[in-house]
């Protein structure tokens, strides 16, 4: 009993950071990796007390957890991870006056929902425009076919942003809409340009690339952060033609990342992935804001977050212009014979 009272006393001196992410349910693996990153950073800062709750990616739980956090004097919350949950969190968080950090939800519309939402990853819009810029200027591609899953918001919005920007730069684009029932054979027959953008999740990308290679199509495939999965790299180990995708993080990309990589490998004996890095940086940004916050109130922490101009994290450089969405480095990774290498980094300053 005495131990508990002592624990209570010491706990009350700490800054409570809530973590509202899915640890079970359909996207549990994202949540678990992200939590590893958050915990890894929090363990280095004794002033932080993490309060973790599993929202199962269920929007009702997202709001319930926020209410509980508010009652427990949590100052700032990391999560949720996925965009539909983030909309709900924005609305509830606004009522409760809780600052919410979105470490991985890329939907561009989110931060409009509430002034208390603060993002630490790039948006689909920034990512899409960076990909278009990379294709047009770096790879010197002038024609682009874009496959878009019309039933999926992530796919269709990225397709739209890339298409819009690529056309503005002067390139020619063609959209190939697909749905649930589209056969890979039929789709591949439609590839007539030598560059195809596949804004899809890795499970859907694999059969398309494999099938077009079977047909000896010499196409440069390009993707986005949905490709960033070892399962895809393994499946394409026999494909010697380079493919490219954009992502949030690449190992050893800067000094901060180097340190983070060693820390993580020492603890977990495996290489960190994007979600671990995004979680780590979400906690990083909070700690940075706490340094300049006038008080530990949620409002002051929020003000301190908004006053961050530039931040160097393990996922690259963050540039905030007084807004809740950062301009961030977009990493372009080259994938060849199942191996990944950092091809180029589109710095935050060049992302418009």
């Amino acid at each position, binding site marked *: *009993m005495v131990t*508990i009272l002592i*624990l*209570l006393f010491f*706990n009350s001196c700490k800054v409570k950071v809530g973590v509202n992410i899915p*640890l*079970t349910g359909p996207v549990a*693996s994202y949540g*678990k990796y992200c*939590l*590893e990153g958050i*915990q890894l950073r929090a363990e280095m800062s004794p002033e932080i007390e993490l*309060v*973790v*709750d*599993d929202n*199962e990616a*269920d*929007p*009702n*739980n997202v*709001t*319930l957890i926020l*209410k*509980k956090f508010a*009652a*427990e*004097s949590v100052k700032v919350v990391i999560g949720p991870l996925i*965009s*539909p949950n983030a*909309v*709900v969190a*924005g*609305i*509830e968080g*606004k009522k409760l006056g809780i600052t919410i950090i979105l470490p991985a939800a890329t*939907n*561009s*519309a*989110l931060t*409009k*929902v*509430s*002034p208390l939402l603060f993002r630490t990853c790039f948006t*689909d*819009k920034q990512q899409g425009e960076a990909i278009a810029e990379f294709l047009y200027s770096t790879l010197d591609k002038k024609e682009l076919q874009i496959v878009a899953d019309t039933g999926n*918001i992530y796919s*269709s*919005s990225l397709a*739209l*942003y890339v298409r*819009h920007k690529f056309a503005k730069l002067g390139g020619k684009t063609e959209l190939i809409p697909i749905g649930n029932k589209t056969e890979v054979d039929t789709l591949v027959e439609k590839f007539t340009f030598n560059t195809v953008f596949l804004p899809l999740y890795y499970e859907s990308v694999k059969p398309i690339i494999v099938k077009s290679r079977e047909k000896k199509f010499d196409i440069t495939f390009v993707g986005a952060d949905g490709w960033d999965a070892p399962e895809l790299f393994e499946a394409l180990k026999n494909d010697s033609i380079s493919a490219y995708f954009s992502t949030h993080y690449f190992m050893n990309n800067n000094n901060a990342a180097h340190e983070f990589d060693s820390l993580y490998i020492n603890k*977990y004996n495996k290489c960190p992935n994007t979600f671990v890095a995004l979680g780590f940086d979400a906690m990083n940004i909070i700690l940075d804001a706490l340094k300049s916050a006038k008080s530990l109130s949620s409002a002051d922490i929020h003000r301190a977050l908004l006053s961050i101009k530039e931040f160097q994290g393990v996922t690259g450089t963050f540039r905030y212009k007084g807004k809740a969405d950062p301009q961030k480095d977009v990493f372009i990774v080259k994938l060849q014979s199942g191996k990944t290498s950092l091809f180029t980094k589109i710095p935050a300053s060049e992302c418009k």
Partner: protein
Amino acid sequence: MINTIILTLVLFNQSQLIDSVEVFNFTSSKSIGIQAVKMTNMFRTELGKLTPVLTKEREENIGIASTMTLMDVTKLCREAKISGIVSGKIKKISNKYRVQVMYHNFSNNRTDTIVTVNSDLSQSAQLLAKSIFHIRKGEEELEFGSIQIGTNPAGAEILLDGEYVGNTPARFDLIPFGEHSILLSKKGYNTAIKLIVLYPGKISTLTETLIPITGTLLIPNDKMPVYLLDEVVVRGERIKEKLFETPKGVDIISRREIEYSGARDVPSLLSQVAGVSVVDPTGSGIFSSIKIRGMDPSKYTAVAIDGVVINDLDGKVNWSNIPIELVKRVEIIKSSLSTYGGKAAGGIVNIMTKEKEKNKFSLSTTNGKDIGVGITFSASDVWSVWANTNGRKGKGWRDEETYDIRNFYAKSNFPMDKNSNISLSFDLQNNNITLPGGLTAAQIAINPEAVGDDKEEKYQQTIRLSSQYMSESDAYNFLLNFNAMPQTYDVELPWLKQRMNGINLSGNSSYKKDNFTLTSNIDWEFDRRRTTKNYTIPEKDTSSDDNAQLINPRISMEWREKFYGVSITPGINAEWVGYWFQNGALGAPSPNYTSAFSPNLGFLIDAKGFDIFASFDRALRLPKPYEKVKNIELKPEFLSTSEAGIRIKKSNMNASISVFYIKIADQILADANTFTNYGDAFHRGAEGSIDLIVTDAISLFSTYTTLQAKSLAENDSTYVVPGNPFQEAEVGLRISKIPLFSLTGSYKWRGKSYIDYKNEFGTIPPYGTVDVTSKIIIHSNVSLTFGLNNLLDEKGKNFGYKLNNEARYYPIPPRGFRVEGGIDF
């Protein structure tokens, strides 16, 4: 305070657009007029940035006509052959501006609406200027899209990017292309969240059928919207289906509803479900028995934690092992499921636990006569674990009712890869319980706290090690259960002493593709019971040793098809059971085999505002050696369950009614604790529930169950199955402010029930109880839960049996309390 600015911003001519830029402000007051002028100037600046042709001289054409009405301006424009007019409204709500601008094109009579929200004046001005600039250049197709939003029913509030913009149906034009969020909310319906992409130059259509709030036990009682989710029924094992595709009586208690219920433990939560009856003989909650539709819980109800069945060898459940703080969802299927086998022939209570919760230390007492200590610990890293250890020692309310229980339950989850994981659970129980026995009516009249001459002593030691391997993909689920439960269960009655132990192994896999589900299961169980007679009682001819071994492989197939709006689910379950009983220490095992094909069929009509379901299931229940009191041959029972019901979905009310009929063939009949013969038992009844929102913070709930349970022995005499009340009703009131406070008060009434239908003295009279339960968060780390039981102080009798042709009753506890203080650390 809401300020409204109405202004007509720009007039322009089709050929020489900028030349005739004019601005009129219509102001309703002087102070708002200042805002309008500000807005106009900002707008002019923004437009100037986009169109360098807007020179100083031309700006002189801009005038302010504060006295004109929009109609006057429109008239003037038409006379001057001006092709279009842009008019607008600004509503200032708190510190936000909601700007709605209409572009009326006189040449084609088209009106487009631009709405901007949650931005300051300059941002609004910027967007408006941009929009109008693009209209003028005919370039709106490059930057803007439109959206038509409709809902069924209409009238839902639309939140576009988090701000209220109007009610459905509505069309919004000139919305910047790209991603937007839309929330559609209407009272009494689940809020729909949509993330949409608007394409430049295209009209997107969003038509959403709002789903009424239903299928819940508790109505949300604050303004928090309930978001649309597909409620998934996990059906005990990994076959997932949506709640309203299930043609059965199913209740799901979500995590949110658990918070609102004020329940202090799982049995008190379950008692709020129609058709579920909870008996708590001591008031401490630890010995509660839960009956679904009057079915003997120890025989027919499977209780599972995360898919691992936790019923002891004698079918009982130790509820103190499941701290309610760790429960995230409870699914109750109130009917037989042939795919799950006979252990759940009367229903399943599947309790899903959280991966991690705060560590908690709690102290509690019941009536100040006992003390309970509990510690719940959880951790998650690469793997997760939770453990609960609790103990309770003290006296019950009756003389010589004592208990000393010590439990430990731990569960750990190890992810293997993305699709599979292994979970291990460990259960250790050491319970020493003395129950004071049943009293005759005469004894109760003298002293209801007395001790009966059939006082019962139980000593239970259980170690259970369960492991579960689960692999799951879109089409395929594989589950392997290993459940090793060396259990020693000693019961000492005046006339006999029993010791039971056993072990169980089971495996399951399921495959689901489109409308087809294939499930296969195998169970193996070994049970042993040793009985020592203390007295010779003719009705209880007990043998000294019974060993039983059972193997039960099953394959089930199920289809789902929809014809003319009726979803039909036919299925078949093929199973074989082999069982060996060995009577006496040296007796030879007697092998028995039975195989069965059991059909099942479900119908579901999902109509507007309600759905109707009907189903039939047949299941085979394996015999258990502990049922063998008299030396008669044990054999499997066949349970046939038919049910039909309707779930009504109204805006602030949910209601459901269902009727059921269960036939248990070849049941060992218990004529008031005398196991004499085989016969068929019949449970038929109806249950219903109504949940009603009164105000934002107050809701009402009510349940009603009526039941008739009879058995028909071979000699054709009819008995009422002992202990089953014929009617049970509950009305309750909930007041909550989540997460700080919740209070539930309810009145529960039980109708007359019988010990022995043939003898009037075997009748248990009707009685009512009033219970109150509440949870309060005193400090962020400190909570207090208290319960007041049986405020009416009715010393009724809720359970009875017959001994030596005389009725015996267990009186229920009188007015009492239970209080628990918890500290999170």
